[in-house]
């Protein structure tokens, strides 16, 4: 196991290097000029060039890349072009709210979808199953930003029971206030995920019900409920692991649309803001962070697979 993990980590290094080269060159070769943000009408040509040198943008791209890698290895992600703050500090400020928001909505989706998927499979083709699958169709088809707008209209504008913007009210420091701010973003984020997972779990549970081991356990006299909840469900959870592994990057990179609409001070909003301002160091940091998380997510889901399903061996 340890050898497998070490091997996979070593294998992922070239992938990370390729991703960093590609994203670095895409960003740096873009026609937008970050120096433009600093230019004021009174500046002379010399001053503009000095700004360019100070930001390190006067050197060829590959030299800039090597500087960036060198600093990265020292643990220095550079400074934001916009407010001169260290990128690490910006990310530290924003990552907490994002992990909180994404983590809670992920946990809710998993719990809900296991329950709904199992119910749907047990009552296959009955009213309850049809109802759940209709709702799931809506979940995978609804544009998240529109769903958010409708929630804001209903709960903030019409009934005025939930705040529509930010993470906390100014001057208030209670958990209840935080929960009130978080309810709508969490609903918007978990509805699509719950729907996708429910559909997978439903079809897996239905497939597992036909397996031979179920007949065997029944002939041994085991209670059907026990077979369902212990044996069938355990085998049906594999897709959950894959999807959670695939979603791991979003835990740190956030949801840019949902965070923007609800004014949630997380990574998603940081990312969108940095794109608008051509803030290269921040964009690179977020890209690399989510690539690392993607690789970690794949690794973790492979390890979990082998634990849940002993037939799968960790080879290579």
């Amino acid at each position: 196991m340890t050898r497998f993990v070490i091997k996979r980590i070593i294998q992922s290094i070239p992938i990370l290097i390729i991703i960093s080269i590609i994203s670095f060159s895409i960003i740096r070769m873009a026609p937008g000029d970050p120096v433009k943000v600093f230019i004021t009408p009174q500046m002379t040509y010399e001053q503009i060039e000095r700004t360019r040198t100070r930001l390190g943008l006067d050197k060829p791209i590959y030299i800039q890349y090597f500087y960036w890698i060198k600093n990265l290895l020292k643990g220095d992600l550079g400074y934001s072009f916009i407010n001169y703050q260290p990128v690490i500090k910006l990310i530290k400020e924003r990552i907490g709210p994002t992990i909180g928001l994404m983590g809670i909505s992920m946990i809710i989706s998993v719990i809900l979808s296991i329950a709904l998927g199992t119910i749907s499979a047990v009552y296959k083709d009955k009213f309850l199953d049809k109802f759940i699958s209709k709702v799931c169709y809506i979940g995978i088809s609804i544009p998240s930003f529109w769903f958010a707008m409708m929630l804001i209209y209903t709960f903030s504008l019409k009934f005025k029971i939930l705040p529509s913007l930010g993470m906390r009210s100014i001057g208030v420091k209670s958990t209840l206030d935080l929960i009130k701010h978080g309810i709508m973003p969490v609903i918007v984020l978990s509805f699509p995920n719950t729907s996708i997972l429910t559909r997978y779990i439903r079809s897996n549970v239905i497939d597992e019900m036909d397996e031979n081991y179920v007949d065997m356990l029944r002939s041994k006299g085991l209670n059907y409920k026990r077979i369902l909840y212990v044996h069938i469900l355990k085998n049906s959870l594999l897709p959950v692991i894959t999807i959670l592994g695939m979603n791991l990057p979003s835990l740190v990179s956030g949801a840019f649309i949902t965070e923007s609409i609800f004014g949630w001070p997380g990574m998603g909003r940081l990312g969108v803001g940095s794109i608008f301002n051509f803030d290269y160091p921040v964009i690179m940091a977020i890209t690399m962070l989510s690539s690392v998380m993607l690789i970690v997510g794949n690794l973790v889901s492979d390890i979990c697979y082998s634990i849940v399903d002993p037939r799968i061996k960790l080879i290579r």
Partner: protein
Amino acid sequence: MNEVTIKKTKEYVKKNKSIKIYVCIISILILSSIFAFLSPYDPTKIDINNKLVSPNKKHIFGTDDLGRDYFTRALYGGRVSLTVGFVSMIISMTIGTLIGAISGYFGGRIDSFLMRTVDIIMSIPSFFIILIINAYFKPGIASIILIIGLFGWTSVARIVRSETLTLKEREYVLCSKTLGGNNFWIIFRHIIPNILSTIIVSSTLNVASAILTESSLSFLGFGVVEPFSSWGSMLRNAQKYMQDAPYLAAFPGILILLTVLSFNVLGDMLRDVLDPRNIQSQKF
């Protein structure tokens, strides 16, 4: 369409009667966006005296902030949204089918190179796509079609590749090979026609996701911009009037939801009906 498919379709429709509704919705939306010009109103005609009128008999969706008839605008917006959905679907299906078939058929180094490329494209975070649009393209219908088309083919390529891997071992492929058919003849004549059902299913689901992506990008201001409008950009505009005119936000959103929903349901039906692996399980 062979006999089994027709029989299965009938059986499916009998079991899921609601499928008829979704097919109707898609047809109505397509027809109404084609015949949008029949509307008595001009979608760009500004009438300040009539701004933000709630839905009534004259304007069934009301009017927007510049007094334009919202129903007509929704029809023209649907034309843009559906065009983006279909054209980008065609682009990504073409690239995906070709790459997947070549990758699966030739195998070896070509296969591992193409599949690693797919892996890398799939691992690009979605916000990076917005960045590329923002930096390299001017927002507009053509660039949004291109972007969605160029990023949407990876999953298609994977599906087509795995189908090709099983098909290329079949006897008729071997037969064509011994008779001197060249590789591209085999791919276009024998492999692609035999995975057509898979391609049809994925293209239906692809339209749904393309329309959804287009609406989110337009909502963020990176997609379709004035003077054109799509359902997504109408919602972007409607955001400002949530308090006074919530119907401006309601109608385009419902239309997106209905369209995407119908394509998703249709795609699932086609999968059940066309997938040859379902034949045994349904016992005919």
